[in-house]
Structures are given as C-alpha cells and as structure tokens.
C-alpha cells in the first residue's frame, strides 16, 4: 500500500506522472463522452423526450469544459511528460515536484467542476464560453465553484508550461541544438508559451466574473459603465489561442509518426518549425473572429477576417510537408499511421470549413449554427483526438515494453473513422440549413440528419471502449516489444529500452 502511494501519489518521475495524466484523461473521455451521448440522445428526434431543457444546457456546458480541460489538455500534457525528457536526452523534467503538483490539481479541479451538477440550482448552463450576463446575472450559484475549478485548471497549466519551457530550454543533451529537436518538442515549446500567455487571461476573466457575481462590480454591466463585450474580447483572447494549444501538440505527434512509417525524414523541418511559431503568433491576433455578429465595427471585422485567413498559410505548409514526407516513402499503415493519415485528411477538411467561417459575410449566416459545431468537432475529434490516439499507439510499446494487437488497433481505427464522419458530416448541412446550436429541440426539417448523427455518435462512443480494452490488454498481456519498436523510428527515445529505465537518461547522451 505504501509503495502504491509513493509511486502514484508522491511521484516525481515524469513517466509515472505522464501515465497519471493519460489515465485521468481517459476517464474523463468517458465522462464527457457520456454527456455527449445524452445530448445526442435528446437530439435523436425533434421534441423534448429525455432531458429537462436547462439540464440539456448544463450538459452542453460541462461536455465542453470536460473535453477541453479534462481530456485533450491532460492527454497532451501526459504525452509531453512521457516524451519530452526522452526525446531531448534529459533525466527527467526540470522541476519534478512541481510536475506532480500540476497533475494533482486536475482531479481536484474536476471534482469541483462535476460537483456543480449536484448543487442546488443546477450546474453551469451557459455554454463553455460563459458569456456575461448569462454567466453572471442569470447563472446558478454553482457557477462560483465552476470558476474556482477553472482557477485550479489554469494554475496547473501555468506551472506545467513553466516546467516544460524550463525543461526544453535547460535540459537538452549537449549537442542537441534547438534546430535538432524533434517536432513534438518544438510544438510543445510553442504551446507552453501560448499557455503562459492565455491562462492568466482566463484567470482574469473568470475572476472578473466572480466579482460581478458576488462583489457588486460592473465589469460586464453597462448600467455601471461596463460592457458585456469586454467579456467576449477577454474570453476569446484566451479562447482562440486555446484551440491552438489543443492542436499544436497534435501537429507534433503527426510530425513524429508520418516520417517513421514513411521511412523518410520529415520534409522541410525548418519550415515546419517556422510554421508552428507563426501559427502561434497569428493565433494571438484573431480572437474577434468569434465575435463577427456581436456588433464590432466593420474595420475590426475586416482586420480579423484577414488575420484569420492568414493562418491557413503556415497550416497549409505543414499539411503539404506531411504529404511530401509520405511521397515516395516506403509506406506501411500500422495503426499509428492510419490515425495520422486520417488526421491529415480530416483536419484539412476541418481547416477548409474554418476558412469558410473566417469570411465575415458568410459567417453572419454560419455563426451559432451547427456548421460551427461541425467545424470544431472535426478539428477536435478526427483532428486532435485521432492524433492523441495515434501517438498512444505509437509510443505505448516504448512505455510498457509490450506490443498492442494490430488487428484490434485496426478495428478501433476503422470503426472510429467511419463513425466520426457519420456523427459530424451531416451537422455541416443542418447548420447551413439553419439549425442553431445549443438547442434541445429543433424544427422538423433537421430531423433526419440529427438522427443519423446520433447513430454515429453511439457507434463512436462505444468503439472507444475497445480502445480502453486494447490499452489495458497490451499493458497486461501484450507480446514483448523491442527498444526500436518501429523499424523506421528515429529519435533518442528509441535508443532506450522498452520500457525505459527509471531515470531515463541518467547520463546525457552525446548527440552527433
């Protein structure tokens, strides 16, 4: 028992902490996923069948918060924890105790967040975007606990980012210059800087919300000289770069997987680095594209339209470079590669709908419709989530020394990729046809596609149970994996045994 507590609750080891993050993320995948299935069940038919409308709104809110803060971010940080020291030849993260704190704040934050569902007045019901005054004047009392949960989440991310930046800047093995770092390390360096900028912004936002709710301030109330749009500006200054925080580590994972299964180096490494850095800078300059219909002046709309469209350029460079890496490569399509290729195709598709949304006159039509919902779910599910899962299939044999079942992995992939398109492709069309988002009941003309979407959702949701089975079965009963694991894999992590020793690189390796 004492050994269990020491290893899993008092850990200062980046591998164990990475595992904690990943397990935590997986549990939340099913929490947030169940909420999604409840939402889709209600939307299966027009009319109100299963859920009280306010509770529906609460589920929509918590689904978003849990998936973003409880699934994607922890999984990405878990991968960062496992991989960054291995990839740069470091013994561990720069600040191992702080690392543990960053993890342990998350279960506490999630308990606080989910507990709001059970409080008098119900849970937060204003969407994950928390617009004032819906989230200030008209919100249930549990909102204050949600705000505190967000404080804890932000603290975790800030400290994690400081740790990651310090590790990458100070702990690289001698000879590993910045331009020799693996792309996954680059994307996390840039992501960590973005987090350092945006998390204090979120903290400020929710603290102003808390004050408006409890201390009689009027930040977002025009009666006192404040402005509801102040909330939107500050929230989206956090919120837009946040989605780049979600996608950049995924880009890094894809940049690791594709070269391995193409048996070719990543095409255009230098430009991949420049692209990631420019995406991050641009991400900080586009926030008001979420506010095109909120009454901002025409000049502002134009600026944000142009800056948003600009981001497509470095992103496109990355997509072309992944394809160029595959071109004339010696390709095999094991499960990680399947997820990576699906990512490239489906993320690009999501990017196209993003460019559509950037066009102001068109966005007047798309805003707050299911077209937006379809866009961001395409980026997040066949985008980010596929990349994360691909990364887990790719590195799990290294972590636990056992190989997963390729047959089961293929089943997981194909069921997922087909069902994810069944869920979200129809949502584009109902959005274009006029169905608003965040509604539990809808007009009859949207019925058929909603029904299709729901069916796809249930298939997708239950398919992820297969993923859990695969992971657990691999760890317990997989066949032994070599140190190299994948014959095309290049990088410091593949020079260590599978699983790696407790203190990864106790002596820094020499980089050629």
């Amino acid at each position, binding site marked *: 028992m004492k050994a269990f507590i020491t290893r899993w*609750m*008092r*850990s*200062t080891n980046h591998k164990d902490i990475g595992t904690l993050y990943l397990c935590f993320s997986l549990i939340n995948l099913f929490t947030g996923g169940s909420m999604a299935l409840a939402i889709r069940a209600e939307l299966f038919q027009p009319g109100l069948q299963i859920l009280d409308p306010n509770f529906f709104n609460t589920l929509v809110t918590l689904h978003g918060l849990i998936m973003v803060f409880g699934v994607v971010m922890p999984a990405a940080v878990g991968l960062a924890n496992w991989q960054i020291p291995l990839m740069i030849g470091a*013994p*561990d993260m*720069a*600040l*191992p*105790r*702080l690392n*543990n*704190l960053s993890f*342990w*704040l998350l279960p*506490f934050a999630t308990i*606080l967040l989910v507990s709001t569902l059970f409080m008098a007045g119900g849970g937060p019901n204003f969407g994950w975007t928390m617009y004032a005054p819906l989230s200030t004047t008209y919100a249930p*009392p549990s909102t*204050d*606990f949600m705000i*505190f*949960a967000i*404080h*804890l989440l932000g603290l975790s991310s*800030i400290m994690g980012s*400081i*740790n990651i*930046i*310090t*590790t990458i800047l*100070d*702990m690289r093995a*001698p000879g590993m210059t910045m331009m020799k770092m693996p792309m996954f390390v680059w994307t996390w360096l840039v992501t960590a800087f973005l987090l*350092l*900028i945006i998390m*204090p*912004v979120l*903290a*400020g936002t929710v603290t*102003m919300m808390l*004050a408006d709710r409890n*201390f*009689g*301030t*009027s*930040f977002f*109330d*025009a*009666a*006192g*000289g*404040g*402005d509801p*749009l*102040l909330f939107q500006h*500050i929230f989206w200054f956090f919120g837009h770069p946040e989605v780049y925080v979600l996608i950049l580590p995924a880009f890094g994972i894809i940049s690791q997987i594709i070269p391995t299964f193409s048996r070719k180096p990543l095409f255009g490494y230098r430009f991949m680095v420049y692209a990631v850095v420019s995406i991050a800078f641009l991400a900080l300059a586009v926030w008001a594209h979420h506010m095109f219909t909120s009454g901002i*002046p025409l000049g502002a709309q134009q600026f944000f339209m142009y800056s948003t469209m600009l981001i497509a350029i470095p992103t496109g460079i990355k997509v072309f470079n992944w394809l160029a890496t595959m071109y004339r490569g010696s390709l095999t399509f094991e499960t990680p590669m399947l997820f990576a290729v699906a990512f490239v195709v489906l993320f690009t598709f999501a990017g196209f709908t993003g460019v559509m949304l950037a066009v102001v006159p068109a966005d007047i039509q798309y805003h707050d419709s299911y077209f937006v919902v379809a866009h961001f779910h395409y980026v997040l599910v066949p985008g980010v989530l596929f990349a994360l899962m691909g990364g887990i299939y790719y590195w799990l044999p290294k972590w636990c020394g056992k190989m997963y079942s390729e047959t089961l992995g293929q089943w997981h992939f194909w069921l997922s990729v087909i069902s994810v398109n069944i869920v979200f492709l129809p949502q584009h069309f109902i959005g274009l046809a006029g169905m608003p988002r965040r509604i539990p009941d809808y007009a009859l003309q949207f019925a058929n596609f909603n029904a299709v979407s729901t069916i796809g959702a249930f298939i997708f949701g239950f398919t992820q149970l297969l993923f859990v089975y695969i992971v657990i079965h691999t760890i317990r009963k997989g066949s032994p994996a070599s140190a190299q694991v994948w014959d095309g894999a290049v990088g410091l992590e593949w020079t260590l045994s599978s699983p790696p020793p407790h*203190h990864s690189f106790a*002596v*820094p390796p020499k980089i050629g």
Partner: protein
Amino acid sequence: MSQSENVKYYLPGASGWPLAFGAGLFTLLVGAGRWLHDLPDGPYIFFAAISVIAVVLSGWFGTVIRENLAGCYTPWVGRSFRTAMRWLIFSEVIFFSVFFSALFYTRLWSAPELGGAYYPLTNILLWPDFSFQWPLLDNPDNSQYLGANHISSPWSIPLVNTLLLLSSACTFVWAQWGLSRGSRWILKLGLVLTILLGLTFLLLQANEYYGDYTRDGLTLNAGIYGSLFFFLTGFHGLHVAAGVLMLSVILGRSLAGHFTPDNHFALEGVGWYWHFVDVVWLLLFVFVYWL
C-alpha cells in the same frame, strides 16, 4: 564548468507536498465558495485551509532549502530555477495586462461608446442621460451602481507610495550588492529596510482604501471605475504583500547564515519579483492614478 556538474542534475525523491498543496487549495476554494454563498462553515473551512497551505508551503520550501544547503543543487539546477522564475513573472505580467487592457478598452472605447461617441444611437436609445468623463463618477444607472463622489489626488499618498517602492528597489539592490561584497550586515540591513518600506506602502494603501470606502464612496460597487480601480490596485497590493512575505523569509535565511555570493538563487528570484511589483506600481501610478 566541470564535467560532473554538467551531468549531475538533482532529481528529488518522492514527495507528498504537491498532493497536500493541491488538497489545501481545493479545500480553500470550497471554503471560499461556501463563504460566498453565506454557508456558516465557509469561513472556517477557508481559514483552516490557509493554515494547511502555510504548513505545506513552509514544508515544501524548507525541503528545497535543505537540499540546497546539502549541496544537491549544481549550477545546472540553478539555471532551471532562474528560467522558471523568469517565466513565472512573465505570466504575472500577462495577468496584470488583462486588467490594464480592460481599463484601456473601457476608457477608450466602451464607456465613450455608451456616451454616444462612436454610434450615437447607443446613447440616445439606451442611456440618454449619460455622458462620458473619466474618472467616471456618474454611471449610466446610478441607482444600481452609485458612482464615487470624490477621487483623491495622485500627488498625495500615491506619490508617496511611488517613492516608497522606488526606494525599496534601491535598498534591495544595495542588499544584493552587500552580499556580493561579502558584507552581510549590508545584506541584512538592506532587506530590513526593503521590508519596512514595503510594509509602509501596504499600510498607506490600506488607509487609502479605508478613506475611499468611508469618505469618498469609491467602492467595488461604484461602477466600472471602482471595479477597475480596486482590481488593479488590489491585486497589486496582494502581490506586494506576497513580496513582503517572501522578503521576510529571505531575511530570516540571511540571518541564519544562508546565501553566499555564488549560491543565492532565492535572493535573486525574490529580487526580480520585487522589481516586477515595483514596475507594475509605476504603470498603475501613471495609468490609474494620474492620467
């Protein structure tokens, strides 16, 4: 630097401090929420959590200090600590810039807009009796948010506070210089003076707040001016208080004989933090009190 210093990076063993700190923070926020909702146990849970956090933090930092005194920390580790402190302060700069941004947005755009400066219909239809001025003493709806009746001059106490903090920066640098010269009495005296100047600043600010609330009607409820004023100066004050606390710890360690010219990260780190707090005050003085 020698080969062994290059390869040796101290990795702490297992520690319960992080989980305990997380539990303490969780309890603190539960207590805060319950207090805000007028539940009777709220304040007790809150203050109990504060004591837990205090114990945990002194335990955690105590462990780090002991590891340093035992010689665990090579220059490599010292570099990591410095990098981490720099980026922590960076995140704090961003935190303050949120409220400065809100101030500029309000003064330059949203409040004049309510007064009809950009799209006149907003003012004509919604708030016809409102005209914009800064400081904003007359809110669009004074029955909900009664504006302050008086704003003190920046050239009295705020100016004194500016001089106090600027002097405290000098006394701190003097203390650091003393350490580098091996003059420990300068180190200790400089720190004592820095702390005293910081404490005086806090007392004067508290006194100002008291006057604002009782005499001037300048409260958190006084509309956007009061909201922004107290958030900007209030968070600054909290950071000064945290800085004074850290300086006291550093003074205690100096008195205990810690810190050599080659090994004094905590002194440096707290110094950077103190200078950051000073710079924020200068910005506050210019953009909140003066202009």
